[in-house]
C-alpha cells in the first residue's frame, strides 16, 4: 500500500512543555485516517509540523515518500491543507481565491481554469464561482477550502478540525464528502475531537497529551480495549493518562 504520509519518532516541545512525544504513524492512500484527541492533545502542533510552519529538531516526516527537510518543495507540492482557521480572502470571489492558490502551486492559467471548474463541480459550487466568499455560509466556505486544497492533486489531504462552527447538516455533508475523497485514492488525515465524525472503516489514531494512545481501525481499537463503543474507548484512553 502506498503511504501518503509517514511520521517517525516526532517530538516537539514549547520550552519545557512537551507537546508531542515520540509520535509515529502512517497514513495510507485511499483511507480516511482520523486523528482523535481532546483539546490540547497536540493535534494542532502535529499539523503545524506536517505543514512545515515550523520544523521539529527530532523525528522525520515524509509526504508521498519525500522527506520534509531534505526535499521540502516536493513534499509540500503533494499535500493539500484545510486549516482550522478560515484562510480565504473574503473580498475576493471563489474563483479568484482558487486561482491564486493554483498559481502558488505553479499551475498554468489554462490548467488552473480547468481544475477550478472540475473542483467546483465536484463540490456543487459552480453557481458560486463569481460570488464573493463573504457572501457564502460557513459550510460553503469550508467546501471552497477543500476544493482549493485539491486543485494541485495532492496525495495527502490534511484537515484540522474543519467542522468547527458548522451546523449539523453542513458537518454531516462535509464528513461524507471527505470520506468520498478517500475512496478515490487520496490519503486523508482528519483531526477532530468529535467522535461522530468517525466512520467504521476509518483508521483511528488517538492522541492524548502529546502521545499516541491507540492506533488501528475502529473495530480493532474497540476490541482491543474490550469496550462496547468508540466513545467508551476514547474515555478509557484519555482518562487513563490524565
Amino acid at each position, binding site marked *: 500500500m502506498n503511504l501518503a504520509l509517514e511520521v517517525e519518532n516526532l517530538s516537539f516541545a514549547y520550552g519545557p512543555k512537551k507537546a508531542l512525544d515520540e509520535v509515529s504513524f502512517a497514513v495510507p492512500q485511499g483511507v480516511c485516517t482520523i486523528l482523535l484527541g481532546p483539546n490540547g492533545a497536540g493535534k494542532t502542533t502535529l499539523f*503545524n509540523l506536517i505543514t512545515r510552519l*515550523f520544523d521539529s529538531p527530532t523525528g522525520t516526516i515524509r509526504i508521498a515518500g519525500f522527506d520534509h527537510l531534505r526535499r521540502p518543495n516536493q513534499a*509540500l507540492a503533494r499535500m493539500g491543507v484545510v*486549516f482550522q482557521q478560515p484562510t480565504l480572502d473574503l473580498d475576493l470571489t471563489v474563483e*479568484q481565491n482558487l486561482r491564486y492558490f493554483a498559481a*502558488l*502551486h*505553479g499551475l*498554468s492559467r489554462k490548467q488552473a481554469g480547468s481544475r477550478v471548474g472540475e473542483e467546483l463541480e465536484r463540490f456543487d459550487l459552480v453557481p458560486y464561482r463569481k460570488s464573493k466568499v463573504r457572501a457564502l455560509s460557513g459550510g460553503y466556505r469550508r467546501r471552497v477550502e477543500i476544493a482549493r486544497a485539491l486543485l494541485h492533486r495532492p496525495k495527502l489531504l490534511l484537515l484540522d478540525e474543519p467542522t468547527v462552527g458548522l451546523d449539523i447538516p453542513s458537518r454531516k455533508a462535509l464528513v461524507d464528502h471527505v470520506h468520498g475523497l478517500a475512496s478515490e485514492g487520496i490519503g486523508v488525515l482528519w483531526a477532530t475531537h468529535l467522535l461522530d465524525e468517525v466512520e467504521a472503516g476509518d483508521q483511528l489514531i488517538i492522541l492524548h497529551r502529546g502521545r499516541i494512545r491507540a492506533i488501528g481501525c475502529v473495530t480493532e481499537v474497540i476490541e482491543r480495549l474490550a469496550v462496547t463503543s468508540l466513545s467508551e474507548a476514547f474515555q478509557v484512553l484519555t482518562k487513563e493518562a490524565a
Partner: protein
Amino acid sequence: MHALRAFWAITWRELLRFVHQRGRFVAALVRPLVWLFIFAAGFRATLGIAVTPPYQTYILYEEYITPGLTGMILLFNGMQSSLSMVYDREMGSMRVLLTAPLPRWYLLSCKLLASTFVSALQAYVFLAIAWAYGVQPPPLGYLKALPALILGGLMLGALGMLLSSFIRQLENFAGVMNFVIFPMFFLSTALYPLWRLQESSPLLATLASYNPFSQAVELIRFALYGQIHLYALLYTSVSMAAFLLLAVWGYHPARGLTAARRG
C-alpha cells in the same frame, strides 16, 4: 516558470485587496495631505528653508516636506502590511502562502515586492495631488523617483516584516505608531533638514542621520529632482538587505513562528 506565476499571483492578490479596501487607501492618502495642506501651511513662515541640495533656489516649506510625506506613505504602508501579516498569520492566509512549494525567502520577498508596488502607486497619487497644489518637481523627476520609491518601500516593508516575525505584541497599531512610526518619522529629515536639527541638538541630528528612514527620504528627494544621492542609495540598500535577511531568518521553520499557537 512556477516562481514567476506565484509572483504574479501574489502581486495580483495584493492589488485586488487594495482595490477592495478603498477605505484604507483613502486613509493612507488623507494623512500626508493633511500634513501638506495644513501643517505645512501653518509652518511655512516659521520654518524657512535655505538653499540646500538638491534645491537650486529658495523653496517653500511645502516643497521641502513633499518627499518626506511620500516617505510617510511608504512607512505607514510598510508597517501596516507587517501588521496585516500578523493578522494574516492568525487568520491563516499567511499559512496558505507559506505552504506553497517554493522557498520561503522567495515567497516572503514576493509578498514584500507586491505590497511595495501598491505603496508606490499610492505615493504617485499623492505626488499628483501635490503637483496640482503647486509642488512641481521636474517631469523627469517623477520617473526617476520610481526606483527610489520601490527601494525605500522595500526597505520599510522589510523592517515591518522583521518586526512582525519577532514581536508578538505588534497586533495593535497604536503600539507600532508610538514605538516605531513616530520616532522614525520625527527623527528624520522628512520634516526638517539635518542642519536645522543640528542647531537645536547635535545628538538628535546624529540619530536622524543614522535613521534609515531619513536616508530613504533623501533618496526620494534627490531622485525627484533628477539626482542620485549615492550615500542614501547605499545606506537604504544595505538596510533593506539586512532587514530582509533577518526577516527571512525570523520566519524560518526551524525557529518556528513566534506567534505559533499551542494545540
